């Protein structure tokens, strides 16, 4: 399992019509590579409808996810920046990281690294400012503590 986010699972787009489209786009590489099925994407969007926008975990950042299920084959994260931002139930979001968790513990270390990364708001803004996935990859490599 990757310790941060695979570069093939990162995308940068200018805009999305709504948060549903943003989440679908963000999750697509995981579906393409067989980490999740389409069902998991629907479940993430339903979860947001049901539980409210608490997946907006930091300024301009959201962590779409649903409960671990058979729709998740491999634990992984994928990343999407929406340059112009999109509204997530009253919150302006420009960075999405999709969490696909196979069970309730396998992603522990991944999230530990993510939590530390998010606690420094500058990290989020720096990722949003990137124009290529190479640049994002470089920031994560430098600042995402995997130990």
């Amino acid at each position: 399992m990757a310790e941060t986010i695979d570069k093939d699972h990162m995308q940068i787009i200018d805009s999305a019509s709504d948060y549903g489209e943003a989440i679908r786009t963000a999750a697509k590489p995981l579906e393409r590579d067989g980490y999740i099925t389409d069902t998991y994407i629907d479940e993430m969007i339903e979860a947001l409808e049901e539980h409210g926008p608490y997946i907006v975990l930091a300024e301009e950042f959201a962590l779409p996810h649903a409960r671990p299920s058979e729709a998740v084959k491999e634990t992984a994260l994928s990343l999407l920046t929406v340059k112009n931002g999109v509204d997530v139930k009253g919150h302006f979001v420009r960075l999405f990281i999709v969490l696909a968790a196979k069970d309730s513990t396998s992603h522990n270390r991944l999230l530990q690294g993510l939590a530390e990364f998010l606690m420094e708001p500058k990290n989020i803004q720096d990722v949003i400012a990137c124009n290529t996935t190479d640049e994002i990859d470089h920031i994560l490599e430098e600042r995402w503590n995997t130990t």
Partner: protein
Amino acid sequence: MKFLAVCGFGVGSSMILKMTIQKALRELDVDADVVHTTISEAASEQADAIFTSKEFVDDLEKRTKAKLYPVKTYSNLEEVKKQVQQALEDHEE
């Protein structure tokens, strides 16, 4: 003292919140247990302070004796630290 971090599924958001609470406790030099769980299991967990979103605070209010502390942004260390300090004060009384 035991803190509980709660979200819908107990896998993502509450885990991030738990880590933010742990960091706040370290910075305040306080030793305490922090566990994370789902909204459906939260009421049956023994805890002194429950941290969760405003929506879930309203939902849990009727079902738990633990004190509830709403958190808007789960990885906002300043916000979480303020609530942790409040919880520690309330616990001492």
